[in-house]
């Protein structure tokens, strides 16, 4: 009996191994284990045996059945795997083909730079204030302590509009400083604002654009002095340019709306013909600032005996050019896609102090 079973097993296993498709393997399975299969028939024969013989033969048959089933199943997996492999090989593509077209959107470097500036000053407690581009000469000049015949007023190359506002000529704002006046007229100290925005001067050549952007800053409270002005702007310069020990220099200067006034230089080097920001033998002017002139506070109805503070203004294109190596101011506004894609930023690169300002 056992010899017979061994022979059967050998035969079935050989057939199993020989099956080279799922279909032929199924035939082997049916022949062995199907309802009319060889092993099924032997199982049926057990009923005719005496109990003793049945017990031992039954055990042997069960072993055989399990072994055969396991072998067939294993072979089935092999064959299924091979079939899948074959299909997958047929599905092969050339992965070096380019992907489907995707948008290559970009954020303009002016937007990015303003976002960076806001991220830094936001950390220092400044909030964003805004004002109109079409101003009047009271807000743009007179309230800022620039009377009509003042030489500084003539240097502004102002664009004029035909209308008047309360007896004052309409102008395109020449700087973001009029928003100081508007803010101080509407809010009470303490104030801590920055004002990004468009500004206009009637000048167009290689280094001037009739429109450009500034960020104004204003702090008014009872204690802020020039030491704070220095601290605030030094931290800004270092954070913005990403140079921790960037040399920052304050030089006395003149603006009608601040007193004392200063211009701020950062260290740079032109050694070897390459411009680099940081320690070096040269200085580069990047912004103007000063303590708010008491007359400006009084023009806004703020008690200059009690309140004081500082203001600053910086050119967005200028600091963007310096940081990102952009050579020509006019290219910012030419909407050349090649330029925009090169100097622009991915949509999700949103600057923040915790996430980082620099890519």
């Amino acid at each position, binding site marked *: 009996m056992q010899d017979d079973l061994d022979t059967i097993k050998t035969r079935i296993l050989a057939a199993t191994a020989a099956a080279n498709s799922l279909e032929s393997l199924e035939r082997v399975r049916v022949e062995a284990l199907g309802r009319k299969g060889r092993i099924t028939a032997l199982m049926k024969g057990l009923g005719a045996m005496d109990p003793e013989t049945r017990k031992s033969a039954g055990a042997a048959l069960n072993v055989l059945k399990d072994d055969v089933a396991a072998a067939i199943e294993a072979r089935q997996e092999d064959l299924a795997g091979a079939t899948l492999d074959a299909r997958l090989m047929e599905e092969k593509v050339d992965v070096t083909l380019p992907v489907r077209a995707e948008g290559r959107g970009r954020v303009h470097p002016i937007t990015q730079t303003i976002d960076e500036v806001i991220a830094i000053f936001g950390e220092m407690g400044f*909030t964003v204030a805004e004002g109109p581009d079409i101003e009047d000469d009271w807000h743009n000049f007179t309230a800022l302590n620039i009377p009509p015949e003042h030489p500084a007023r003539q240097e502004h190359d102002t664009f004029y509009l035909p209308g008047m506002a309360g007896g004052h000529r309409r102008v395109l704002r020449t700087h973001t400083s009029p928003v100081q006046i508007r803010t101080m007229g509407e809010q009470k100290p303490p104030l801590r604002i920055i004002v990004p925005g468009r500004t206009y001067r009637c000048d167009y050549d290689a280094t001037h654009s009739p429109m450009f952007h500034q960020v104004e800053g204003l702090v008014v409270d009872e204690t802020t002095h020039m030491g704070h002005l220095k601290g605030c702007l030094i931290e800004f310069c270092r954070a913005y340019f990403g140079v921790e020990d960037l040399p920052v220099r304050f030089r006395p*200067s003149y603006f009608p709306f601040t007193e004392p006034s200063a211009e701020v230089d950062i260290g740079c080097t032109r050694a070897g013909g390459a411009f680099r920001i940081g320690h070096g033998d040269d200085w580069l002017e990047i912004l103007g600032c000063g303590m708010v002139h008491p007359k400006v506070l009084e023009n806004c109805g703020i008690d200059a005996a009690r309140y004081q503070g500082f203001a600053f203004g910086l050119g967005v294109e200028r600091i963007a050019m310096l940081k990102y190596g952009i050579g020509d101011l006019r290219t910012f506004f030419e909407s050349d896609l090649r330029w925009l894609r090169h100097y*622009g930023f991915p949509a999700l690169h949103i600057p923040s102090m915790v996430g980082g300002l620099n890519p």
Partner: protein
Amino acid sequence: MKVPLSWLKDHLDTDAPVDEIARRLTMVGLEVEEVIDRSHGLAGFVVARVLTAEPHPNADRLTVCRVDTGSATTQVVCGAANARAGMLGVFAAAGAVIPGTGMRLKKASIRGVESNGMLLSAREVGLSDEHEGIIELPGDAPVGAPAAGVMGLSDPVIDIAVTPNRGDCLGIRGIARDLSAAGLGTLKPVDADPVPGTFRSPIAVDLQFDAECADACPYFVGRAIRGVKNAESPGWLRDKLGAVGLRPISALVDITNYLTIGLCRPLHVFDADKVGGDLHVRLARAGESLPALNGKVYELDAGMTVIADDHGAEALGGVIGGERTGCTADSVNIFVESALFDPVRTAATGRKLNLMSDARYRFERGIDPAFLVDGMEIATRLILDLCGGEPSQLVIAGAEPPPRRPIALRPGRVGTFGGADVPAHEVERILTALGFTIDKDGETLTVGVPSWRSDIVGEACLIEEVVRIHGYDRIPALPLERTTPLPHPARAPEQRRRAAAGRVLAGRGLVEAVTLSFIASGDAALFGGAPESTHLVNPISSELDVMRPSVLPNLIAACGSNADRGAADAALFEVGPQYAGDEPQDQATVAAGVRAGRTGPRNWADSPRPVDVFDAKGDVLAVLAALGAPSESLRVSADAPPWYHPGRSGTVRLGPKTVLACFGEIHPGVLGKMDVKGPIAGFEVFLDHLPKLRARKSAAKPHLELSPLQPVERDFAFVVDEDVAADAVLAAARGADKSLIAEVRVFDVFSGGNVGAGKKSLAINVTLQPTEKTLTDAEIDAVARKVVASVEKATGGTLRT
């Protein structure tokens, strides 16, 4: 302001090297733009004597010179007419580079005669434009000595950008005073002792002003000097003026320039013999004109101050002298003017006449009103020294304006305002060195302001004086104190929304542009037009003459220029202002965008298609969704401004009135007028029209109910009239059973074929989401019947079977 080091040292006793002086100037607020080394490039150039000068054998205009260069005798072919034996010139040997031309000299044969170098003109040396002949050096110059030294070029010139408040530093003495206060030397005294007059001036002066314009010229000092000889100035004076870029003219003119530059005291010299009668200082009369010293004739008006004689205007006060009475080489009797003119009126006059002069530049920034007599005495002494003559007594009209009120300075404010820790004695030293006077009254200082510092008006000004001389670099930098433990968001919600709109559009593949706020009025007319109030009075060009009424024209024009550069499929956006008028509330912030040409470059997988209205609509809805517009309340209608394609454009509204956005294909007629190829799909989202974001009590989102039951989908196709809006079909289907129908989508639109003329087939997919129990077939069928009935009722369509 150009300051030769030697001239500075006339006023400042210092041993400091020029680099240290320049650094300190910058750090006290007198920003040095450049230290000009005028001897640069002249290292090998020497004084040479022309020994012989013979005509060139083969050329009429050339001279062959034997030249003694101190170390050798050599031959030079020279083209200058003034080359002659005995003269001293500037010699450059072969191999030298000529500064004026940048050329390297070579030994050459000129028309057959050997030339071993060159005798230079002023232009070739880089001194001036003078190219008439070669430079003639003074007869006592040592042959063979470096020419730069002999010509006074070894004296460096410091070029300073003087800020408009520092009129006093438009004289070299003012700059010297700042340096002495900063500890870089001692200010030398200036000799302004009176020169006694020996006779009464034949010319009198009167100030003819009404009370309301008396400040036009409140004070006038004059003096006649008779018997002068107006010759060429001596070398020292010509060198000084040459160093600051002024052309020496004659001793009298040069002396006035010398006082202007050195002491910031502009003067004018009349030829007394040409003055008819007395001088009257008055406002110009209508129709009066002045032939000025610069050869031009100026038409004057009643706002301008003139100095007139009996003939009429002879000089424009504080601006320029007149041709007729100006002094010349032949003048013998002169009248010198040292006057005070109103800064505002002087500035306005100069601007109106488009006339800048050294005098105007100084008067409009404020002249020392207490230096008229001193200036006159200094000038008199110089004139007597250089031109001889005999001075009259002074003629004085008006009076020196009273000194300004002293200013109170609380020394503690230097620290609490200026941020600098400056000891009390140092505060006093600095102010005194700058010419301020100090009266101590307890803690507070009563500070008298020097007459030349009209810019000092309050305590803050005094603090600036102290701190700038003390040094801004010595102010300790302090961090700004936090006003709250954590910073508040820097941007307000509406500002955040604007920033987000740009990021959303960039994320959708559009590239951000920033374009000018002004455009051509012709283009503006295509986009609703610019009102008269937004036309610039002084545009930089007719192409940029109005404030833009829409952001689109710039973006469309950019598509055109990019197409010209080979990038036809531009996708651009801008978040920026547009202007409906000149009031602040007329300015609106708009997120506008355009997509031009096709959806992308040709690609092996997806072929691109021309852009259309749905690209623009997609951009609009994406922006609105990202900014939190209530999407279920938005209504899209088929109307839009005329710059859009009338059949392929729409408007998104919130409620009946609030227009949130317009979108569509740009009207081909508009594109044609702008000369830009289409198609272009564009949009404008009016960010200011979005509902204000209200502060919410909680950031929590609404409770989420998730059904465990499987959703069921059913498709329907309706035949409706061509003009039935898909939106109506969707709304009707959605409304058929609000509790069960979760979503309705259009998946096919088809017309033609067997649908019938004037009809279209619209196929929709309806998702039912059971919430309580699985739906039976009967229940599903019931909902389906409700959908059909609702759509048919609302649209007049029929279910397609």
